[in-house]
Every structure is written in structure tokens, then in C-alpha cells.
């Protein structure tokens, strides 16, 4: 058993999941891999299992945040010291996983964010999402959070204390972003960023970024960040 667990939340990712696990094994063979199948209707769980990953399958779709949290809960019941979370669509490069774990192993951070913007990477973000990223970056600072270059990156590594904290009921079921980062910062967790390479998001079968969804996301994130800013520190 490794000291680190890679959590991959997956929803209908049968086309990419095996490839991601294979590349992960090639980049860091010693890591344990857990795929949290979030109620997929395709062969995601079967393919992940065949590729050698442990699989936890949700009975029905609970949302990205809930899938991540299931991974944290799984890890908290084991003896893993660190977890790395990455997407199942192949956007995150498994070769960056050791780089994400390095600050945790060195004891210099509790939360490491794989950032597209710490140094110039080849990543190109659409205009609307770039505006959103800068906006949320500023909101995070305005609410008293840490200055983070890429606050919406889902490629992160967490120390045991941090992922155990994220097992609390406050953790959002849909989008855990700056609201969670703010809470982690307020509870004294040390957050740092390391540069990573990211492929552009593959075209989704169901469009994830319709204007209405973006508006709702912005509204929801502002509200939950406000809540995070007011939440008593001893909670969670």
C-alpha cells in the first residue's frame, strides 16, 4: 500500500478513464488509484477496474464535489497520508502528480494546487473563463482568502489533515472551488501552487458551460464563499 492515493471522480468517462489510469501508472507506479464512479450509465467502473484501479460506485449521480468527498472519506478510513485529485477526462497530466506531492512530502504545504498560470504554460483558456478566473481570484482575496493564481483548478493534492477536514457536511456536492479554498485558508491550512500542464477541456457531450449555467455557478459560488467567510472556525 502506498502512502498516497490518487482520487479520480468520473461520470460517464468510459472513453478516457483507462488511458488516464495507464498514464498514471507509467508516471507514478507506486501510487494507489481510486476511481469514484459518480453513477455513470456507461462502462466507466468496469474499465477502471480492468485498468487496475479500486472503484467506488455511487448508487446514483451525486455531483462532482460529492464524488471527490467520497474519495476523501475512503482515504480517511485508510492510512494514506496524502491524496491527489485529478479529472478523468484526460485534462490533467499524470506526469505532474509527483510534482504536486513534493511540497506535501517536504512538509511545506497542506494543500497543493496544480496551476496553469504560475509560469506560462501552453494552456489557452477561453475569454469568458479567463474573466471568471480573475474574478474569482479577486473574490477569494476580498473575502480574506489566500492569493491563488488558479483558484478553479481541480488538480490538487491534500495532506491527511486537509482531506479529513473536507469530509465535513459543509463540503459542496456540486462545485468545490474558492469557497473550499477560503475555508481551508481560514482554518490555517497552508496552500501553495505548483505549475502543471493542462490540456484544454475536451468537448463535452453535454455542454457544461452554457451561459445560464455560468450565471448560476457565479451566483452559487459567491453565496457559498460568503458562507465560508462567515462560518465559525471551529466547525467542519
Amino acid at each position, binding site marked *: 500500500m502506498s502512502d498516497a492515493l490518487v482520487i479520480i471522480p468520473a461520470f460517464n468517462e468510459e472513453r478516457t478513464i483507462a488511458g488516464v489510469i495507464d498514464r498514471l501508472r507509467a508516471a507514478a507506479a507506486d501510487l494507489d488509484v481510486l476511481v*469514484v464512479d459518480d453513477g455513470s450509465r456507461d462502462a466507466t467502473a468496469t474499465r477502471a477496474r480492468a485498468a487496475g484501479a*479500486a*472503484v467506488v*460506485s455511487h448508487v446514483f449521480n451525486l455531483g462532482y464535489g*460529492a464524488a471527490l468527498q*467520497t474519495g476523501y*472519506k475512503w482515504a480517511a478510513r*485508510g492510512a*494514506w497520508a496524502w491524496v491527489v485529485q485529478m479529472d478523468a477526462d484526460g485534462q490533467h497530466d499524470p506526469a505532474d502528480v509527483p510534482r504536486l506531492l513534493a511540497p506535501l512530502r517536504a512538509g511545506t504545504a497542506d494543500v497543493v494546487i496544480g496551476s496553469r498560470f504560475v509560469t506560462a504554460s501552453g494552456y489557452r483558456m477561453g475569454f469568458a473563463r479567463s474573466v471568471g478566473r480573475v474574478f474569482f481570484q479577486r473574490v477569494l482575496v476580498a473575502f480574506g482568502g489566500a492569493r491563488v493564481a488558479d483558484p478553479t483548478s481541480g488538480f490538487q493534492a491534500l495532506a491527511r489533515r486537509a482531506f479529513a477536514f473536507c469530509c465535513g*457536511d459543509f463540503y459542496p456536492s456540486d462545485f468545490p472551488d474558492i469557497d473550499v479554498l477560503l475555508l481551508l485558508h481560514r482554518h490555517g491550512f497552508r496552500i501553495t501552487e505548483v505549475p502543471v500542464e493542462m490540456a484544454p477541456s475536451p468537448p463535452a457531450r453535454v455542454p457544461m458551460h452554457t451561459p445560464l449555467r455560468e450565471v448560476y455557478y457565479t451566483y452559487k459560488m459567491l453565496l457559498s464563499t460568503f458562507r465560508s467567510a462567515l462560518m465559525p472556525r471551529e466547525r467542519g
Partner: protein
Amino acid sequence: MTPDQLDIERLRQLALEQPESGVTRGIALVISLCFLLAVLDLVRRGRLREEYTPIWVAVALGIMALSVWFDVVRVIARLIGAWTPSSTLYFFGVLFLLILCLNYAVRLSALSTQVKLLAQEVSILRARLTTPKAEDGGRDTDVREPKSPPS
């Protein structure tokens, strides 16, 4: 005399004192009785839990009381500056429904959290039952299994 020549306060008094018909009161009484019986029947058939009934029993009894003592509505209408008993009833009816909807949204939120917790627990437990130990590595840190002796 045109309406604008009428004293506004006198007009309001007229509106407030318009007599209610016995038929309207009778209908309200019958509806409230039927409503109360429906609530009790739902409880009897196990389709409505007892803890959700107080509000509906109170609503039925409230309509019943108002249909008997309609003057209470007039007093309330005067107190809140309304013009007619009907608008007063309408106002409080809408307010009641708004509060009720908010209350249900709060209950739904609590239920969503509980369902999420349960679904996560079931998924984790099911995976632990089916995943080979060597792969899952997910043994409880607080439940130590005795190690098998070396062969």
C-alpha cells in the same frame, strides 16, 4: 356624486363593512371540515406523518374559526390598514404559502444532505465488500485486523 367626491375613509368603511353572505361562510366551513378529514385520513393511511400534520390541522381549524367569527377578519383588516376582508385573507394566504415553501426548501436541503451521506456510505461499504483487500488498502485505521501468521 362621483367617487372622487366621496370621503376616502367613508369608502373604506363601506368596503370593510360589506356583509358576507351565509353561503360563503357555509362553503368555508364545509371546505375546512373536508380538509381536516382529509388530513386525518392521510395520517390513518400512513401517507402523512404525524409530525407534518400540526400546520394543516391548524389551517383547517383557522378557516373554521374565521368562517364562524368573520368579524375577526374585519378587525385584522382594520389593524393592517387593508380595505377589504377578502384582500386581507388573500394577503395572509400568500404570506403563509411563501413561509411554507421556504420551510419545505429548508427540509429538502436537510434531506439532500442526509441522502448524500447515505449514498456515500452505501457506495463505500459496497466497494469495501467487493474490493480485494490488497488493492483497496482501505482498512480502517481504528479497526486493526489481526495479522495472519506467516506461513
